[in-house]
């Protein structure tokens, strides 16, 4: 159960957040409800491709960026 798990603190898009220990980047996307959205993911400034998200375990203190395409000229 999530409430029995240890939680870790991360930086998500510049804001502090918590995540169950052992979560992958793919788990994180599911937790925040962004599955299916086309976005770029970075962990500590390194790009993690979609096929590598499930195998990317988030560590305490990691800086995670989720980026999309928005309007711009």
């Amino acid at each position: 159960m999530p409430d029995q798990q240890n939680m870790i603190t991360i930086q998500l898009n510049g804001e502090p957040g918590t995540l169950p220990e052992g979560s992958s980047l793919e788990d994180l996307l599911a937790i925040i409800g962004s599955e299916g959205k086309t976005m770029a993911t970075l962990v500590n400034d390194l790009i993690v491709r979609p096929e590598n998200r499930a195998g990317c375990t988030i560590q305490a203190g990691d800086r995670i960026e989720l980026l999309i395409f928005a309007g711009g000229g």
Partner: protein
Amino acid sequence: MDSLQIGTYTFSSRLILGTGKFSSAQVMLETLRASGTQLVTVALRRFNRERPGDDLFTPLSTMAGITLMPNTSGASTAAEAVQAARIARELSGSPFIKVEIHPNPQHLMPDPIETYEASKILAKEGFLVMPYIPADPVLAKRLEEAGCASVMPLGSAIGSGQGLATAEMLRIIIRESNIPVIVDAGLRSPSEAALAMETGCSAVLVNSAVAVAGNPPAMAEAFAGAVEAGRKAFRAGIMEKSGTAVATSPLTTFLGPAS
């Protein structure tokens, strides 16, 4: 066929559109369709689940015949722009990158030094680099030598609607350039786009003038017509200016008294 060639890409439309400032994704899509554009800019932004409408990738991917040109807006150094370009390529799958580095939000003038440094690196990495630059002929030539696919000098400040304030410098850049010159930023009305094309620009990039118009799809259509007219005029060969009148009708009198 008179098409715009950039790298291995061929475009029949010479109107490039930005996707900022539209009232909705629906209006943006209608506008893109009306314009006939084939190359469209987008910006990177942090995902925010409170604002699902920010995401333009999903609506844009429903449109056939559109190539994305992400920009590096938000970067204030070459290193940041290079990182943004690499992220954008992961997301878009497109080799196009609009290098846009403007450190001062007051005037949004591109930083020529950081832009040059970033463009040089990205060209080596195989990007089709389209730098947004001040209308500086020396910088434009240096960027061409660095391997850029085009140069995109500004007509005037982003979103200002001041038109072709840099017209004289643009003429020099066009004359000296062996790569497409695309006027980016500052255009307010279709006549300015036509004038840019008559001057010999290869394309124009428009965003605000279309997005904030009363009827964006109609304005996009007007810009498309102007770009086409200006291009046709340029290719047809525009007459030279003369300091004096040159008659178009015979000046011999025929109603005067018989001699």
